[in-house]
């Protein structure tokens, strides 16, 4: 063994390498080859090499442009989700537990008792749902008093333990234009302010915040407003703020030498100044990594939401490129064209990533 280290290395790598070759590299190579053919799941059609025809077809495919636009539009949520995760990480980075142990114990006890009393009263007065809500929030507060920020970090990361499909189904019901919790809440808030207003159509609407722009007719533009795309973006921001980005930012924050902040504090720097001149620059590698990963994810994203929430609708406004690839390949059985779309998507991802790398390299040199 000692005389054959390469053999040992290969032996250990073999399971992963074989899986990678079988399930990734070979299919990827096949899809590249397939994109130059009329590859279809209809056997009546003999397989033929058709050169760049699929790519030429794509240039004239109006749907492709709409779905590319949808993909790009949904990615507008990325700055908010990354910024939100950073903001939350900074909030949760500090130790929020009481420094004085007896005070912490008293606060925990008081919070626990208040929660029990509040939830119990609601339960026995016939509002079980409200009792659950108050009970849950009270539990989080009580645990927070006892364990500090660890509780909140866990609470914010909890949705990531939930199956994506379950989260999507939950949001689908929240977005019901009439009986959904969001529009019901908006309606009551409007009534409290003394006016009546219909809530947004959410998943049923083709409106968008860029709907005032004169898009071509095939973009199914429903005008300015909040529609299905914004609904999916809002859900994405919610999921991303407490997700893996938060963990990465927290890890990055814990790597910042505390003496930097201490020195700045002694020199009289305020919170914002310390963030601007110490935290933010120190987090640059983490932020760069998150931006790259989010861009790649954003370009490849939207499949689950389209599949489970909207069927790509209304009128194609939530169909992204990844869902379009699926539609072409497995519903229209046109694997050749679907492969061509997939490779164009790859080129887009590659170009954007390369651009980011080059910018990062340039900024690094500066």
């Amino acid at each position, binding site marked *: 063994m000692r005389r054959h280290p390469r053999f*040992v290395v290969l032996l*250990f790598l073999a399971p992963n390498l074989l899986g990678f070759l079988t399930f990734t590299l070979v299919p990827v190579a096949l899809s590249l080859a397939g994109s130059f053919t*009329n590859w279809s*799941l*209809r*056997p*009546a*059609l003999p397989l033929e090499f058709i050169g760049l025809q699929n790519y030429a077809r794509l240039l004239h495919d109006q749907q492709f442009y709409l779905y590319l636009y949808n993909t790009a539009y949904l990615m507008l949520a990325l700055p908010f989700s990354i910024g939100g995760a950073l903001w939350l990480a900074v909030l949760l980075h500090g130790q929020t537990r009481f420094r004085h142990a007896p005070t912490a114990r008293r606060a925990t006890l008081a919070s626990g008792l208040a929660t029990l009393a509040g939830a119990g009263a609601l339960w026995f007065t*016939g509002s079980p749902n409200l009792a659950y809500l108050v009970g849950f929030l009270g539990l989080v507060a009580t645990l927070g008093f006892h364990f500090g920020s660890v509780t909140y970090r866990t609470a914010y990361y909890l949705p990531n333990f939930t199956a994506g499909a379950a989260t999507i*189904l*939950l949001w*689908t*019901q929240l*977005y*019901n*234009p*009439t*009986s*959904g919790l969001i*529009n*019901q809440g908006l*309606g009551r808030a409007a009534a409290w302010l003394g006016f009546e207003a219909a809530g947004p159509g*959410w*998943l*049923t*609407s*083709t409106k968008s915040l860029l709907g005032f722009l004169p898009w071509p007719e095939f973009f*199914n533009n*429903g005008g300015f407003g909040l529609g*299905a795309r914004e609904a999916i973006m809002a859900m994405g921001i919610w999921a991303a703020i407490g997700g893996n980005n938060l963990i990465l930012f927290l890890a990055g924050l814990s790597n910042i030498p505390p003496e930097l902040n201490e020195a700045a504090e002694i020199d009289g720097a305020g919170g914002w100044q310390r963030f601007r001149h110490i935290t933010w620059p120190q987090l640059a590698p983490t932020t760069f990594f998150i931006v790259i990963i989010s861009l790649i994810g954003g370009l490849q994203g939207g499949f689950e939401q389209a*599949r*489970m*929430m*909207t*069927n790509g*609708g*209304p*009128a*194609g*406004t939530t169909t992204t490129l990844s869902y379009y690839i699926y539609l072409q390949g*497995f*519903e*229209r*059985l046109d694997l050749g064209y679907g492969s061509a779309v997939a490779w164009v998507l790859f080129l887009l991802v590659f170009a954007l990533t390369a651009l980011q790398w080059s910018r990062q390299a340039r900024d690094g040199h500066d």
Partner: protein
Amino acid sequence: MRSVLLGVFGVLVAMSVVAYTLTPAPPRHRTRILWASSANPFRLAQIERFNALHPDLLLQLDSSNNRFEKIIVQNSSGVGPDCFDVLTGSYLQAYVESGVAWDLTDRADALGIKADRDAWPSIHNEITYEGRQYGYPANAGTFMILYNKNIFDRRGVPYPSEDMTWDEFFRLLQRVSESGPAGPRVWGTNAMDYSGRMPVPFLWKTLFYSQHAEFFSADGTHPTIDTPELRTAFRLHRDAVFRYQVLPTGVEVGTMTGQGGWGGTSLTQFAEGRFATVVSGKFAIASLRGFVEQQKRQLERWAADPARQAREPRPEVLRIGVVPLPHFPGRPSCGVALSQTVVINPQSPHREAALKFLQFLASDTYARMVELYGMPGNPSKVRYDYPVSHPELAEHELTRWVTRTMAQGYQTRKSPFLLDFDVERVLNDQVARLEADPALDPDQLVREAQQQLDDLLQANLGRDPRLAALYRARSNPATAR
């Protein structure tokens, strides 16, 4: 470190060996037949009966792989089920074109499963394509209007009648719809196809078929989309959503429930009283019986609990009525007949055994079973004199209408040059646009659909010389070589 990794590897190997040895093997001397179908309440009884009658065979249900794209991909890869369900002739055409449906034409007569002799004439096109037979129906039906009598009684509105026009029907639904502070509480009607994950509205299609209309010319060479019938269907669909406000859009229904699968869709919402009517068939009985039993149990619990009586209103038990589909003025009520056809995978090593299952579907035993589950089986074998188990569900009334409408139902033409599947996809896309923006002109949408489908047909011909030759032969038989 090396020893740790080797240890982990060893444990994984050992666990794999244990898992392999624990995998249940099929019983000896029994051939396993895998059937990709929905997990509805009828399936288990059906499978149990078949297995009891065939000790050498073991029919098993695969309810998680019965979607179109899964069947196509699995069968094309040689790992598909032995037999699978095909809902509607549109899918059958797509399966045949994909080469995953076994041609039974030459053996059907000898096996006693011949389409034009043993099955309902109105579903002939559901089990055959281009004159060839590819399966046998597990059940058949037509669409009717099921209405919730409790809702109509509560609103003091007369029940729908047998001879209503569509316009009269929508006006009646307006009277029965209820609004709460958060919008519609009871919708007028539900007409959604739930075969995918998200509901797809099909009222437009029902209105189209109600005019005995066709998607293709008689020779199948031209899609006939830009027609008065389809324009009427699109306009009325839009009116039902926006003018009468009795029909929610597909996306709206999708946000009403997170529950999927058998029984979790339009019938659940209908049974819960969220829709006053539903466009459905006699097959609904299988699910509605379960709901009624559940509601009766709730009522019993409520009746036995005075505290609950003071707190909650009396739970309702669903009572339904049934009428045939409304009609257009001067035309009789009309609709297509549909079937759930079982098709055999031509690459299955157990395809001969799967034929036995098709013979079972054509048997007296099976006909008796479908009667009890409320479905119309093979016309020559079904007696329709089964005992009523749930009088609330108008079972005999349903039977009366289903036999009449099955006899009157028709089948739309298919074209070898363009899949029905593509026609429906293009038209569903246009309907989705219409539902998203009432300002769009339905006539324009229909014109665009015609253009898209003409282009698609030409693209199909351009890609397949065999198809192009057939097209020339059909378009101009005199000059075709």
